[in-house]
């Protein structure tokens, strides 16, 4: 045997080995590996002589690892070969291509951009990319004077003064209709059109991508009462969930393993059957955070979000400082508009993991998210796995503002100022955007009903800790005017090119 093997040229053996190896690993998805295994020797030698030409599979591996849409778009424009790699549906930047890189169960949307407030006399919208710290100005007449009530899977939920609500994909510019606002059956007869636009929808959550048939939109409305209603794209009316008296004060919904779960202000966790007649069951409560939690006065001191992280269902609890009379309002010299007081800011987050559902719901507090970071706020909550070499911070909570201020006699307060990056490791809050277009120019001008000093939010708190600037589409329950429109948006796109 040994002598026979000596007679065989090493090349031959190597090739045999590779054929055997190909069989062993036939199911591997890595295009690169399969390239090597498929290669015959003469192929490899040709490759060696024109080594500067990157093999196609290598390019697609690069495409998979790319995290910035701008780089992706630029790479597409290099040559025909690159274009064909950076385009196929396998690499739709945010929905498919990333799966091979981020193998965990991620509800996609790995690329959040922050959409900033609208401008006064221009339909250009600015998008801030936290990964590159750049601001991109993109013309979006479709978003002009629209309230953005949420974002998910690369789509935005928008509502105009005409009371129409729909889904809009900023990259492909597709639209999917949702039922209009009057079909909620909620009495807004005394509200102005602008009020309805700006303070009716608190948040809209999508249970899956609008390109899928099972997509449902769950609306939390109006701002101060937070009831729930559900509709599918193309439906005629919104269907109330929970009933106006039975169960409301919803704070978030999630599609977790095919079932819709919710968490409400009181910490009640439950599930919904939204198939035809929506039915909800309360399953259990979160452990009380502190004694004041249940008191109505302090109801706005907590916000809760549901998110799935590598198969586990998590509740993210956001604790605010919250002023209840004008003496408690916050001022800060470093404000963009120092005369403006604000009512709240985020103090800290806590994370609970659903440990078991039966026989009774049990939660354990998590102190560490590992390589994951969570995005909460006005968009559908989602998670991002931070890979090596990424600009994103791991074990953090990226939050945008989804609270709202109020007007007192002396002070006008508006939302949109409370955002940043919370580190679970040391509890610090860091600003991530502090630039222009944080607030809509309408507020700066003071076009807010009855208010003498118009104004707006936006500020950094102190030196080391901070909350960031950004509008949020929230308003005061007692009738103040709209806030700025913005949210996390991330691009689903490129797949249609």
């Amino acid at each position, binding site marked *: 045997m040994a002598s026979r*093997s*000596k007679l*065989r040229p*090493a*090349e031959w*053996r*190597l090739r*045999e*080995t*590779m054929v*055997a*190896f190909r069989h062993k690993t036939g199911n591997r998805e890595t295009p*690169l*590996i399969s*390239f*090597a295994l498929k*290669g015959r*020797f003469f192929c*490899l*030698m040709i*490759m*060696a002589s024109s*080594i*500067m*030409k*990157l*093999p196609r*599979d*290598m390019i697609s*591996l*690069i495409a998979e*690892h*790319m*995290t*910035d*849409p*701008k*780089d992706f*778009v*630029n*790479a*597409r*424009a*290099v*040559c*025909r*070969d*690159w*274009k064909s790699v950076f385009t196929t549906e396998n690499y739709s930047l945010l929905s498919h291509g990333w799966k091979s890189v981020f193998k965990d169960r991620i509800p996609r949307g790995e690329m959040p951009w922050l959409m900033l407030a609208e401008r006064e006399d221009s339909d250009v919208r600015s998008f801030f990319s936290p990964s*590159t710290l750049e601001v*991109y*100005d*993109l013309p979006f007449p479709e978003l002009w004077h629209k309230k953005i009530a949420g974002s998910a899977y690369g789509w935005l939920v928008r509502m105009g003064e005409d009371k129409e609500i729909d889904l809009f994909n900023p990259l492909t510019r597709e639209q999917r209709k949702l039922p209009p606002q009057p079909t909620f059956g909620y009495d807004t007869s005394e509200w102005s059109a602008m009020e309805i636009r700006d303070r009716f929808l608190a948040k809209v959550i999508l249970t899956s991508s609008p390109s899928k048939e099972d997509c449902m939109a769950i609306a939390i409305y109006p701002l101060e009462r937070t009831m729930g209603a559900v509709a599918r794209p193309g439906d005629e009316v919104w269907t109330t969930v929970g009933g106006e008296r039975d169960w409301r004060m919803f704070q978030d919904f999630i599609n977790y393993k095919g079932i819709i779960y919710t968490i409400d202000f009181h910490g009640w966790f439950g599930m919904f059957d939204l198939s035809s007649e929506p039915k909800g069951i309360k399953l259990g409560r979160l452990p009380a955070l502190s004694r004041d939690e249940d008191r109505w006065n302090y109801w706005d001191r907590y916000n809760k979000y549901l998110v799935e992280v590598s198969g586990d269902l998590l509740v993210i609890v956001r604790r605010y400082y919250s002023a209840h009379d004008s003496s408690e309002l916050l001022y800060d010299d470093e404000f963009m508009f120092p005369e403006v007081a604000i009512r709240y800011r985020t103090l800290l987050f806590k994370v609970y993991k659903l440990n078991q559902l039966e026989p009774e719901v049990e939660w354990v507090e998590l102190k560490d998210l590992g390589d994951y970071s969570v995005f909460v706020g006005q968009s559908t909550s989602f998670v991002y796995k931070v890979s*090596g*070499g990424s600009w994103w911070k791991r074990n953090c909570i990226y939050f945008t503002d989804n609270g709202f201020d109020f007007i007192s006699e002396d002070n006008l307060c508006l939302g949109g100022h409370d955002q940043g990056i919370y580190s679970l490791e040391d509890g610090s809050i860091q600003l991530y955007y502090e630039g222009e277009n944080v607030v809509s120019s309408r507020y700066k001008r003071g076009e807010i009903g009855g208010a003498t000093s118009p104004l707006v939010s936006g500020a950094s708190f102190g030196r080391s800790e901070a909350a960031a600037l950004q509008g949020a589409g929230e308003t005061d329950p007692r009738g103040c005017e709209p806030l700025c429109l913005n949210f996390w948006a991330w691009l689903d796109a490129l797949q249609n*090119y």
Partner: protein
Amino acid sequence: MSESTEKKMVRLRSSDGEVFEVEESVAKVAKTLQDMLEEDCADAVIPITCVRAPILTKVIDYCKDQVMISSSSSTTNNPNERTEQERKAWGQKFMEGVDSSTLCELLVASNFLNIEGLLNLGVDKMVSMIQGKYPQEIRDMFNVVNDFTPEEEEEIRNQNAWAFERDPYYKKRSSSK
């Protein structure tokens, strides 16, 4: 006797004919070679037909380092064990100064030899080299010929004009029209 089995040597020949002698454990970091060595042909000179000597040197450096880490991690208190951060820093240092053509060759080599860690390092480096670059810069870097017609290129750019706004090359073209 036991020493000789511990330090079994393997010879590798690069595409330009240079022969490298490395410990078997080092060669086995490459899955392709490992599979081959398990078929018992360690006494032959293994031709690595698509890898030039300078690249093979780099690959062997990487493999040696992997062997050092794994051998020391079995002992307690080992000084060579690296934290995530150190690993990252090491990877960056390893790739430091690698130009685009060497990088391409390294990628092809690690792909051929099936060294996943090196492949990942290479791809990360590649992504970081492309990051923030405009099409012409990428072409220059990787010797890629622009085979678009002007109309095609215009169309691609228009699809996502926002990404090219600050492209100096692009501006020159459009203003010359």
